[in-house]
């Protein structure tokens, strides 16, 4: 009997999982909303099933419909991709209770890591350095006292949620009370849990993350690091592996910390531990993503390991295909995300029909795309169209190939961020790898001023 995998997602990540299934000889089953009936992920899967109406809440985010689709198609496993239900612990639990394999970590770990305060406690328990901060703060008087002890600038952060929601930067005590109230209101409304805590705001830091893989037998390995510092509104725009400025001793210390955390949790499947790293090489755990990430491809390029295939194999009870000593980094890789957004108008989403789609090729180029000519970019889902990734013997080669690839890329019919991202990687500061988590926001501001 071949393994049957329900791919509970859409777009490029659904296609990525479908391709891994094909390579492994597993049967892939796509799900689609009414808006996605003619989509590429449906065409490429072995089988497909409709799950509902166009709005995500009535299809990709509706756990009842996903479970019903798994039952109807006799699926053995559910791969959630990223976004949608991928970090919904209740859904993960239900998948398992209903007799399917969940391609991800146990629901209990998703739950712990989804609660930022619990995640900090887990990291503390594993001896992993944390950004100095507090537990949940009750009341603005307590916030002021805690802010005094912690020092400014600081961040008010939500225990629940993600995507930057509820985060407030506070320069001094005068702003703290209103920031505390605002953040609680925003996340209370969005996630039903108003709890917030305080964290020191670290300046001039880089966002470095460690890719992890773990199997049911307790083997935990890391696949080294990625630098994802180039972010706009806390959304990553360009990522690279390895992190270009990370010193060798810092790299091994962070990787070792990430493995220790995963081991202490009893982690299974692919996951990512995210850290902030300062100029002196000090590093601080921020959070763990308990799913495959958008930017996993750059790690695949430098290690030669198919992370999605490993995720699937692990879900079916196989041991990791490699041990830590087998993991080697070769060269450098860069990923540029191409979104259907208008950089000249607040990066507003740009739905429409793609009239022309010419993807780049040649040595060292990999494109994971969810669209082709004729595809309709829907207003209902996120704006990412494709990821252009390049690999080279070193960073200069990977960067030259990234510029070449973005020059070749033609997507017409919708407005895209192609030219914007090309101008970013052409900047001297990018060539010299001189950037941190604040660089992109400043670059966008300067662009507006000029």
């Amino acid at each position, binding site marked *: 009997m071949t393994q049957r995998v329900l791919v509970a997602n859409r777009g490029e990540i659904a296609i990525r999982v479908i391709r891994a299934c094909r390579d492994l000889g597993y049967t892939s089953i796509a799900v689609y909303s009414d808006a996605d009936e003619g989509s590429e992920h449906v065409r490429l899967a072995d089988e497909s099933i409709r799950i509902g109406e166009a709005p995500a809440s009535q299809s990709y985010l509706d756990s009842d419909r996903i479970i019903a689709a798994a039952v109807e198609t006799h699926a053995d496993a559910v791969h959630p991709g990223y976004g949608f239900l991928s970090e919904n612990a209740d859904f993960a639990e239900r998948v398992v209770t209903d007799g399917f394999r969940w391609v991800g970590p146990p629901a209990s770990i998703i739950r712990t890591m989804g609660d930022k305060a619990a995640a900090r406690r887990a990291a503390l328990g594993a001896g992993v350095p944390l950004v100095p901060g507090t537990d949940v703060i009750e009341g603005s008087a307590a916030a002021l006292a805690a802010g005094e002890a912690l020092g400014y600038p600081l961040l008010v952060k939500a225990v629940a949620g993600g995507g930057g929601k509820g985060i407030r930067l506070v320069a001094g005590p005068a702003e703290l009370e209103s920031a505390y109230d605002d953040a609680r209101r925003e996340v209370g409304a969005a996630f039903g849990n108003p709890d917030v805590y305080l964290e020191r705001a670290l300046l001039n830091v880089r966002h470095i993350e460690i890719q992890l893989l773990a199997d049911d037998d307790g083997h935990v390995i890391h696949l080294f690091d990625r630098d994802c510092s180039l972010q706009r509104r806390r959304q990553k725009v360009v990522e690279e592996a390895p992190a270009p400025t990370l010193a060798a001793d810092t790299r091994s210390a962070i990787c070792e910390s990430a493995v220790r955390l995963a081991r202490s949790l009893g982690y299974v499947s692919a996951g990512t531990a995210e850290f902030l790293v300062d100029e002196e090489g000090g590093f601080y755990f921020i959070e763990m993503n308990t799913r495959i990430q958008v930017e996993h491809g750059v790690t695949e390029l430098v290690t030669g390991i198919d992370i999605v295939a490993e995720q699937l194999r692990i879900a079916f009870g196989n041991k990791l295909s490699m041990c830590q000593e087998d993991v080697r980094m070769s060269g450098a890789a860069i990923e540029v995300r191409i979104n259907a957004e208008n950089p000249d108008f607040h990066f*507003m989403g740009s739905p429409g029909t793609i009239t022309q789609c010419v993807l780049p090729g040649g040595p060292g180029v990999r494109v994971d795309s969810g669209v082709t000519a004729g595809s309709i970019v829907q207003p209902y889902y996120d704006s990412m169209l494709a990821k252009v990734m390049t690999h080279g013997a070193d960073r200069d080669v990977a960067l030259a190939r990234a510029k070449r690839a973005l020059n070749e890329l033609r997507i017409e019919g919708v407005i895209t961020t192609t030219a914007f991202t090309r101008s970013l990687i052409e900047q001297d500061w990018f060539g010299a790898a001189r950037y941190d988590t604040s660089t992109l926001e400043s670059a966008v501001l300067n662009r507006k001023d000029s």
Partner: protein
Amino acid sequence: MPVFVDPGDSILKGDVVGVIEVMKMFMNIEAPADGVFVRYLASHGESVAMGSPLAEIDTRYP
């Protein structure tokens, strides 16, 4: 769902009269001029096409 402004309200250029969602991104819709708010031309949750009017503002008596 509470509305941002009611018919008859005086509004100033830049006042937020609604929110539009595209691809999980939210953007405020600001009044392009001072005036008196007449009515919404789209209902809550409705899909709208690019360029379609969303509200009517009477700018004769700012």
